[in-house]
């Protein structure tokens, strides 16, 4: 039972993969690191597990510095993207392998293995060899092997990303009911923001250069992203990012798109902060979900012409242009629009995000 602390971890000097990264994960906490492919998420897990030595910084588990401990001495269980299953052992024996070394009564061991196999929907494959199951089933076997272990820390590297869409969503929901995961510190790495929002007690968004752009509860990150990188990484379709200028017209403050006629009134609550900031040039962030042609809960609307409309499952996505600016909006999936249709896109300026044009910092988020 232990807390995981990562302190000022570094890997790589001239071009750091991980750059003075610090965070801690409480016992029983599910901490998700989300970031684009190749950003250094796997490297971070390899450093925590001891498979690679850090160039600087410390890994502390349960108050004990483990930075110099070899991997097998750490009470850490990790899944690998490459599965690393024993080809000559059955799925059952592969899942059982972390339990062999420990003195667990046979009946309890068997129950643990079958429980996890049922959860991962591979209970019908227990007698097969890894060579006789599909890639997705291999991935679940590897995940099962990690989950039966009884570590202080779980490290899960994209454990469900290679699965069929259908089963991925099922397993995501099931992770919520997995009691063992909720007892120890877990670090879960993914590129899928929906997985991160769904599963994380807290989320860290990893940006270029091996830094955490923001750490916080899912709702806080989505509704109050610290900067443009976080705002762009969370959300599908991606947030509309519009280079804009602050304008004053009589008593009303407007935000006007660069080189275009598109403009919105600024919400009264935002005006003091924007005026204190002082810069005329800003970046306006406008989530597609708050720009809607069919649910005018909005306080203001702009005319637009439809370029593309696609119904995508639970929502429809519209790409339109207004005053020379390209906008993505969400619609009801049942609605239908044709290219060239003229629509009115309603929005609520209280939902807007304003970012510093140079640094990308969210002006409404302190710090």
């Amino acid at each position, binding site marked *: 039972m232990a807390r995981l602390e990562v302190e000022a971890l570094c890997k790589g000097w001239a071009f750091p993969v991980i750059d003075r990264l610090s965070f801690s994960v409480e016992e029983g906490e599910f901490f998700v690191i989300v970031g684009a492919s190749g950003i250094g998420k796997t490297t971070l897990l390899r450093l925590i597990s001891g498979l690679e030595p850090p160039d600087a910084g410390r890994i502390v588990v349960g108050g004990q510095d483990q930075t110099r401990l070899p991997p097998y001495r750490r009470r850490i269980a990790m899944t690998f993207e490459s599965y690393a299953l024993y080809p000559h052992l059955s799925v059952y024996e592969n899942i059982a392998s972390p339990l062999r070394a420990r003195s667990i009564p046979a009946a309890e061991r068997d129950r643990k293995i079958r429980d996890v196999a049922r959860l991962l929907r591979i209970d019908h494959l227990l007698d097969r060899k890894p060579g006789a199951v599909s890639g997705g089933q291999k991935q679940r076997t590897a995940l099962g092997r990690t989950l039966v272990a009884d570590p202080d820390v779980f490290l899960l590297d994209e454990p469900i990303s290679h699965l*069929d869409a259908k089963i991925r969503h099922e397993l995501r929901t099931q992770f919520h009911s997995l009691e063992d995961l909720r007892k120890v510190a877990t670090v879960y790495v993914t590129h899928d923001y*929906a997985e991160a*929002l769904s599963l994380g007690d807290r989320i860290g968004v990893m940006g270029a250069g091996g830094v955490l752009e923001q750490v916080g509860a*899912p709702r806080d990150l989505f509704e109050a992203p610290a900067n443009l990188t976080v705002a762009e990484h969370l*959300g599908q379709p991606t947030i509309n990012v519009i280079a804009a200028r602050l304008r004053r017209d009589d008593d009303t403050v407007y935000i006007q798109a660069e080189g275009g006629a598109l403009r919105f009134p600024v919400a009264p609550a935002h005006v003091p902060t924007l005026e204190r900031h002082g810069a005329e040039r800003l970046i306006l962030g406008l989530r597609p979900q708050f720009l809607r042609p069919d649910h005018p809960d909005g306080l203001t609307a702009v005319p637009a012409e439809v370029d593309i409309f*696609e119904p995508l*499952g*639970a929502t429809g996505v519209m790409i339109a242009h207004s005053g020379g600016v390209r906008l993505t909006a*969400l619609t009801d999936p049942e609605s239908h629009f044709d290219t060239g249709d003229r629509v009115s896109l309603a929005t609520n300026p209280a939902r807007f995000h304003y970012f510093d044009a140079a640094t990308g910092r969210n002006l409404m988020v302190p710090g």
Partner: protein
Amino acid sequence: MAQVALSKVNKIYGAGKGAVHAVQDLDMTVADGEFVALLGPSGCGKTSTLRMIVGLESLSSGSIHFGARDVSRLEPQDRNVAMAFETYALYPSFTVADNLAFPLEVRGIDEATRRRKVGEIAEILEITNILNALPPELSGGQQQRVSLGRALIREPAVFILDEVMSHLDAHLKFRMLFDLKRLHRELGRTMIYVTHDQVEALALADRVAVMSNARLQQIGDRNALYNAPANVFVADFIGEPPTNFFTAQISDEGLAVENTDIRLRLRASTRQALAARKSATVVAGIRPQNLGIGEAAQTFSATVKINEYLGERSILTVENGPVRLQALVPPETRAARGDPVTLSYDPAHVMVFDPETEALIC
């Protein structure tokens, strides 16, 4: 340009007791210039079907026509069909331009024509700026586009895409969806897209062919698959989260869901259709997006188990007795584990299936 017609196509691997019937009595027509997705879980027969269309696999019986031409026995290179794969399979030491030109070079097409065609295809795929780059220098999305370009440059009559997006990350995938749609519009080719991802299939294709257990379950557009799924499999496979199903008994008011206090009202036409049935037991289905939160004309109560916040929306997993179901709700919903919740629905959205055949009754 060609219509693709599969008629009574069967594929049986092996013989005797160990024989596997991978594709069974498949009848399907893809119109000239149409974009059809072949959708289904792993092992449903979609890849075997695709391989038979391309000519990489022989037919056990039945026929495949491209337009008026029977291609069932033709070699792949004689069918005028091109295919792009999940893996990019680019030559790492060739530039993007040389990779694109290669299929033309092996056909002995002169250099001026090759250069013109590479330019055209690069423009459509928006890769003109990377023509001189080598594949290892490119991102996954760029490599995928080059791979598409290499298949397209032959100007095939039929163009087949096999899971081409499954290795792309979410944001890139989203862009590729729009790119592929545009590509289809601009080229007007017959396209068949194979995938296990229903969101991709519905987003891209004019019509989606849903396969399971070696058989075609239903072919139709989004509206048909969502609102009139042929059977339980289609209702479950199409839509995310999947349709909620319950075993229920027909009663005077509508349906009584087994082992719960959920009573579902039905619209008049559904009640009439059920009145003629001998058995009182049916399978009812309702989609998570058709369950709302709060008071309305028709409601039932449940207890929240999981509230999954997903940014643009939330998924509530709730229980009533032993029945677990999911509802798609606004992200503002704060209900937490253990909270009671009232779910509302419109009787028009309750689907009813036969428990034996699993076919849609109404």
